[in-house]
């Protein structure tokens, strides 16, 4: 049980224990071990590390940005994608450079193998098979939600000790599966749920919420008639995900597009009352941006058709993932409705779709280092923090892993700000409010979107990666080299004139793209790579807009640097709104920046805070980055 730990508090089997081996767990364990911490990764089954439980694709708009940032900080997701990818596309190519993003279709089995292999091969990282059922906590106080983490207890009764534990239990936390009238506890089809850990967290006084997500039926490739369907090929040539991958030698596979028909909708409408969602069996909130097909049909009755992407699960896999028809209808209804979709008339379902409801921590209990506020040494990352998606999970895993090591070493937390990265935006968003639906990254969440591009993630995070020791000399010189080539190209554009105007001026026109200017000898001579070209275009087109945002970035960084003393008496702040006072007292933000983003704290409250801090003496700067 979660009680004070009777063993010697000095006992330490590892520096860091990571519970879970999904996308968050794998990145957390790998980075902790790479930073030199002795690390354990506790999983039910070693072979399941890095498994893709939903569609076998990585990236997409904003999510691709995250992967590039993870890669820039030495993470593994980009490399695994390059190794396991079977179709690569850059999305939004017709839109601005800031919103272009990579996406890849992966071979599910290969990706799983790659990630599990890398974890197994990492020195300083032990994979422990077993179920973590409880947390070992010194001086637990569920009322005050405080305590000190000592380790975890496994189902077989054994204990593992470490001063830092990272929870990455994903949909397994109190997971329950649904399809029609069928339901049972579970985290993924055929795999058990992590119920005990959910109970342990509740016993520590932590607030939990419930979310819902779903998955479509898997289809037998050989039973599909692709002949009449629209083909979606990959890009030629494919662009790699990782900054570390020089070139991709890959024979790409196609995806196909089909759509639901009025007959599909009629069938679903008739059976909607058999869906666990509509029967009130599921209370968790699902993502609005990724609704089940029954939700789409019932909520958007004016649409007589929805798109379905048929995505191969692997190069030689017999399975096809029909993206767009996630469902928890009874199995026989699933079979009937998919057969009304063109190309799927005779389809065989290999595995039915299902919905999964799972518990997550209310994220306003998290600090900016992904530590659970009050419980020293307890970190959380991934779906347990109310997010959805492999990329969001991996990003948090990386941040939590880094901070677990820094915590053990008594170093200042590693916190990325909102102007530096989508990682910074995500963690800040999560700490600020408890999302009411699974949190997915969108570019619109980033107020400094023009700065945060997929192509410049390496340059943005170079100094952080270096400071953390996650970059070797080769990568450092690669970034310096790229930086110089971009600067040279921008200089050429600013200098070269055509018809009285510089090439840069011409490029800033909305209708002109850099490809139009490639015939210019001065530019062609530089022989820029595709990635460099895209960077140069963004630098020139966005220059004025970015300069204009500079004052906002400055302000943000000033506010982040303005530390609030722990002893500040909010009760004595005359004029503070009651709601703001309560929120500030509950949270005790570390900086004025953090305070300003707490919901219920208005700019007027922040001003009062600033005035009070100015009175109490010169500001102290925060430590760390």
């Amino acid at each position: 049980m979660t009680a004070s730990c009777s063993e010697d508090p000095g006992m330490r089997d590892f520096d860091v224990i990571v519970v879970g081996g999904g996308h968050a767990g794998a990145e957390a364990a790998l980075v902790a071990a790479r930073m030199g911490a002795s690390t354990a990764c506790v999983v039910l089954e070693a072979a399941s590390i890095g498994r893709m439980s939903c569609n076998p694709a990585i990236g997409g708009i904003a999510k691709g940005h995250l992967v590039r940032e993870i890669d820039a900080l030495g993470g593994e997701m980009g490399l695994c994608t390059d190794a396991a990818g079977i179709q690569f596309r850059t999305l939004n190519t017709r839109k601005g450079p800031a919103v272009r993003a990579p996406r890849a279709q992966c071979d599910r089995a290969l990706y799983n193998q790659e990630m599990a292999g890398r974890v197994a091969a990492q020195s300083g990282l032990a994979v422990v098979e077993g179920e973590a059922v409880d947390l070992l906590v010194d001086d637990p106080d569920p009322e005050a939600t405080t305590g000190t983490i000592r380790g975890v207890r496994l189902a077989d009764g054994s204990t593992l000790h470490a001063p830092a534990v990272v929870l990455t239990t994903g949909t397994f936390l109190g997971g329950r599966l649904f399809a029609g009238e069928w339901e049972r506890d579970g985290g993924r089809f055929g795999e058990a749920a992590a119920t005990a850990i959910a109970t342990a967290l509740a016993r520590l006084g932590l607030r939990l919420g419930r979310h819902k997500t779903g998955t479509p039926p898997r289809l037998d490739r050989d039973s599909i008639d692709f002949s009449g369907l629209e083909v979606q090929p990959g890009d030629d040539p494919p662009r790699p995900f990782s900054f570390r991958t020089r070139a991709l030698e890959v024979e790409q596979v196609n995806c196909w597009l089909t759509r639901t028909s009025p007959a599909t909708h009629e069938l679903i409408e008739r059976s909607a009352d058999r869906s666990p969602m509509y029967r009130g069996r599921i209370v968790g909130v699902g993502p609005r941006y990724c609704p089940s097909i029954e939700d789409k049909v019932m909520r958007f009755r004016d649409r007589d058709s929805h798109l379905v992407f048929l995505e191969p699960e692997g190069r030689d896999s017999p399975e096809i993932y029909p993206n767009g028809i996630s469902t928890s209808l009874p199995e026989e209804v699933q079979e009937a409705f998919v057969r009304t979709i063109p190309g799927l008339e005779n389809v065989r379902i290999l595995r039915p779709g299902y919905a999964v409801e799972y518990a997550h921590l209310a994220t306003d209990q998290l600090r900016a280092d992904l530590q659970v506020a009050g419980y020293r040494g307890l970190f959380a990352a991934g779906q347990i923090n109310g997010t959805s998606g492999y990329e969001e999970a991996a990003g948090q895993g990386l941040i939590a892993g880094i901070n677990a090591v820094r915590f053990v070493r008594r170093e200042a937390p590693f916190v990325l700000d909102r102007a530096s990265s989508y990682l910074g935006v995500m963690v800040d968003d999560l700490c600020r409010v408890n999302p009411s639906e699974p949190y997915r990254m969108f570019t619109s969440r980033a107020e400094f979107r023009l700065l945060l591009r997929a192509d410049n993630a390496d340059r943005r995070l170079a100094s952080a990666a270096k400071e953390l020791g996650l970059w070797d000399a080769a990568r450092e010189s690669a970034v310096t080299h790229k930086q110089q080539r971009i600067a040279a190209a921008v200089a050429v554009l600013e200098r070269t004139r055509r018809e009285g105007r510089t090439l840069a001026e011409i490029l800033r026109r909305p209708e002109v793209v850099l490809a139009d200017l490639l015939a210019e000898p001065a530019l062609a001579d530089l022989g820029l790579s595709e990635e460099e070209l895209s960077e140069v275009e963004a630098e020139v087109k966005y220059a004025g807009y970015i300069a204009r945002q500079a004052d906002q970035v400055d302000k943000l960084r000033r506010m982040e640097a303005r530390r609030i003393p722990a002893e500040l008496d909010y009760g004595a702040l005359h004029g503070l709104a009651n709601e703001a006072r309560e929120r500030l007292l509950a949270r005790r933000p570390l900086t004025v920046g953090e305070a300003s983003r707490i919901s219920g704290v208005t700019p007027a409250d922040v001003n009062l805070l600033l005035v009070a801090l100015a009175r109490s003496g010169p500001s102290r700067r925060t430590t760390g980055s």
Partner: protein
Amino acid sequence: MPRRRRAVFEAPVTVLNGRTVPGLVLVMPGPRSFTGEDVVELHLPGGPLLLETVGAQLAPHARPATPGEFTRRAFENGRLDLGQAEAVLALIHAESGEQARAALGVLQGGLDATLAAAREPLLGARALLEADLDFLEDETGTVDPAAIRELLVAGLERLARLAAAMPRARPGGDLLLLGRANAGKSSLCNALRGAEVMLVGDRPGTTRDVVAVEVAPGLRLLDAPGDLDDPDDAWDRAALAHRDRHARTLRGAVLVLDPTSEGASWPDAGALPVLAAVATRADLAPGAFPPPLGPRSVAPVFRVGCRSGVGVDSFRTWLLDHVSGGPAVGAGRAAGFLDRACAEIRTALEGLDAGLGGELVALEVDRALGILSDWAGPPSAEAVLDRLFGSFCLGK
């Protein structure tokens, strides 16, 4: 309705050369007074001499209120919020029933509601822009720019209506165009002249080059290309000379800047109030933005392309809206914010029409929303308060 002559103390208290003068004394103990403090009011017959004498007698205990002091005290004591304090100013300076109604609406605590109506279509436009950026066409279908445009126009109209109801500085007289060589001042005059604006020509008694463009009866833009194109020191001296020469009619400056020029920075207008700023070459370099005006400036910045005429109408409309030749009254802080927000939306609309990327149009809309937030909940209370309360021309 209080009973007649009973609601107040009626006492011959005022002493003038040993004699009493009939008057009224009102005693209003705090905290339920206008300022929240104890207030004593003396009501006396008018007359400068009497006022001076009484003032001198009170001098050891009292002093004249500085402009806006009573409202400031009311704000500091929590009797008014910032929006309401501003509305007092608006009410005092209201020149029409509509202006007075708008001010009263805000004074009654309705700033949020007033703004919400204008914000809503802007947020709607943001949402459509984001849908196009964050999702693939396969998922969302094509987002129609016309729908975005419609929402932006609706937001602009509501804000502009609100702006028109707010009190503002009425410069009248002449505005001096201040800008370095080749900043585009002459082109700006030409562009404005292009549409029904009369060229006045050389002004008698000034240097050969001074050109005045009459935008509306009572307001002229003065452009002095010859003098002001000299190197820095001469330029400054020339500006001063102009200011002196036109001191009586000169109301303020319009700064002009080519943002693509080397080390582009706004010229310093010295003591001359800056009423607006224009960044030229918006058509040739749509991505080139001017540096911000000073942090405390609420003057709108217009982006104008004289070759294509983009933005010229926005600037002209602003000039016309602000020119009546009437007296200069308390400068409108609210109007300044609203004007800036409107200018951003106009830039967004121009970008949308020119086919600028959605991420850039979204940025402009975001800036407009940010400006409104700054107004409704100002980021730097002290600077705002100084500006706001300093602009009261009356004691209360």
